[in-house]
């Protein structure tokens, strides 16, 4: 479970990019975080994962405060950043082994999981190549495999579908569903509202740093008394 309590962040004094956010992402659901560019999605996710410090409020991951017990909290989640340009000089397998070493994944588990996931995502034959030679989608896949490798309870994914081919995108959605069905948490941001509508159990809409709506898609339609698509409702919310 992930909890954000009264979280605020300002890069420049008195100019909050995220303002007083309260979210509770329960176990066993896929939670979509949607909003226009510059709304504060990535800032929120980066505070959630310890990349950015929190100006006000607190963030708990499975009850562990990310600021007070960062190491403990970081073991509880896996994060896919918005840009997968990481460790370009390492080969795919070296990167995954590094992640395995950092998270203490044993040799047998690594062998099984990496082989299966790399095959599923179609990058098995590229594992011994350097990441700098990968396409954007392949980089995205290797980072996703890195996250799935240590099987964290909470998945935090920032625009995970960007650059993925349709097959990989479908597989990732399946994996997200499987993971949440096992009672785990998936928190992901997306621009693709169709994806959010199809797979999310709950969504939060953020605009100009403030949460405009939290609930299911049905609750959103009820609130607006409309049978419109999520895309149309989303536009109404941010124009409000």
């Amino acid at each position, binding site marked *: 479970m992930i909890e954000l309590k009264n979280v605020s962040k300002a*890069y420049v004094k008195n100019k909050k990019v995220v303002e007083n956010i309260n979210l509770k992402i329960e176990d066993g659901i896929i939670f979509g975080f949607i909003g226009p560019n510059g709304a504060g999605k990535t800032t929120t996710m980066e505070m959630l994962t310890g990349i950015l410090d929190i100006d006000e409020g607190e963030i708990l991951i499975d009850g562990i405060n990310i600021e007070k017990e960062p190491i403990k909290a970081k073991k509880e989640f896996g994060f896919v950043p918005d840009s997968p340009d990481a460790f370009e000089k390492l080969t795919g397998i070296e990167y995954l082994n590094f992640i395995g070493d*950092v998270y203490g994944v044993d040799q047998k588990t690594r062998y099984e999981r990496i082989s299966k996931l790399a095959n599923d995502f179609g990058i098995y034959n590229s594992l011994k190549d350097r990441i700098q030679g990968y396409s954007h989608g392949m980089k995205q896949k290797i980072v996703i495999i890195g996250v799935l490798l240590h099987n964290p309870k909470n998945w935090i994914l920032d625009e995970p579908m960007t650059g993925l081919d349709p097959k990989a995108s479908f597989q990732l959605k399946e994996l997200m569903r499987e993971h949440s069905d096992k009672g785990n948490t998936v928190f992901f941001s997306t621009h693709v509202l169709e994806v959010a509508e199809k797979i999310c159990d709950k969504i939060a809409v953020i605009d100009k740093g403030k949460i405009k709506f939290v609930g299911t898609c049905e609750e959103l339609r009820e609130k607006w008394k409309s049978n419109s698509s999520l895309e149309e409702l989303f536009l109404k919310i941010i124009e409000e």
Partner: protein
Amino acid sequence: MKELTKVIFKNAYRRDNVNKDVTAKILSAFVFVIIFGTISSLMAFASYRLTNQLIEVDQAPAFINIILLIMIVFLFSRSVFESLNNLYFSKDLKIFLRMPIKPLQLVRSKIKNMIVSEYLMELMLLASPIIIYGIIMNVNYIFYIYSAIILLLLPIIPIVLTSLITATIMRFTNVIKNKTQVQYITVFIIFVILGIITSLFSTGEGFSTDIFTERMLQVNGLIELISDYFVILKPIMNSLLYYQELSGLINIVIFAAESIICYYVMTWLISKVYLKGAIGATINGSIKDRIIDVKLKPEDFKTRNSKIAYLSKELKQIIRTPIFCMQCIIFPVVFPVVFVGLPVFALIAFARSIGLDFLADAQQNILKPIGVVICVCIAQVLYIMNFTSITAISREGKSAKLMKTIPIGLYNQFRYKLYPGLIANGIIAIIITAFYGLFMPEFNFILVLTLFVVLIELCLLEEKIMVLIDLNAPKITWTSEYTMMKENVNVMYEFFYAVIVIILLALTIFVFRNTTVLLIFLSGVLFVLNALINSYVRKNQAILYKRVY
């Protein structure tokens, strides 16, 4: 083309300070001015001493040529990396190549940027020596006008010539498959070609001690000796030597014409061979060309503890990136060992074998506090040649974001970041200690061991302070590894730090009369400073890492 040049410039040189407040920006500017001023002042001081010494042997004008020669050699060496990285391995290429921009426009914009980037270096290293020389020699304003023209035009020939060689090599190389190897090999080939060109332009007399002595005895003999070995230097030299005469004007015009013609002709030639190599360098690499039947075995998944895994990742990133490897391993470690260490060892061994006693004085002094302080100062100077720690965070680039999410404490990451620099500079410490031991009239194990401890402690302190400096203002969003190294003004803090350390070490000579006591004192002070930094980083790790994304 003007707009394109501007865009390339802004993209490369704007600092990552969008989130800094005004006070922080002013403070950064202030520190920059202080460091710039310190380096310029040091150059001015050295120039003052050298000019006066040359006046004593009636060779004063040779100063200008020595300083210009050093600058040209420096510009040629830098332009090898500049041309390769700016023209071929810069990340903005992917954007520019898909735009309707002619190769000639792109090449000229990139080369203009390379030329402009050398001006700061020229201002720092060349401006103050020329001014000091001008004041001592009481020259008139024409000398300064010619000097300004020379400063403006000097980087052109080294940059376009090196870029042309680079472009030709890249045109006929399969960049796509082995980018790293191509970078290493290209750098090597360019150095060889530049060596050949330089020797072709020399007089062909060859260098001998007889010629050297004979020339030195002549008035301005040193100038001629230098100019014989560097053809570009001749018109510059003559324009400054005879600035009051018509030949001075003719020579400055010749130099300006040479530079401008070289710029237009060579950039045109580069543009003719540029595109294929540039496209090759931007392609990610096709999987079809690679191993198509990978079979991973359980041995490929060996586990290591997180500390070893982290260190291994750091070393792989350094070794596999040519510019990192050059600046962090080859220049600071291999060059001193090969070009300084081994010849000195050979000289000492040779002198001893033929019973020469010219080291006797040095041997007596080496046991005194001044001998130890000189050794420590040499180590400090060699330590700052190593950019491993000053770029420890910046090197990560976008990976820095991911490193903040892994469950390894930031304090531990700080410690692990010290190891590569510690390994490289540790080798320097071993070499200096070995020299010290070898120089001693009678081997004193305690003294040698204490010196080694001091050198290692000093190295550790240096690495910690450098990582802290990089943490304070990391350059994470770079367009290429080379631009990160080159534009990282943090490197200047390293020089500033070294100056302070050397001044403090020099002061100890006046306080201590006993070498062992001095070494124990230094060891104690360094131990306390190291412990204080550890404690500071442990307590403030979250704040320190705030600037990293």
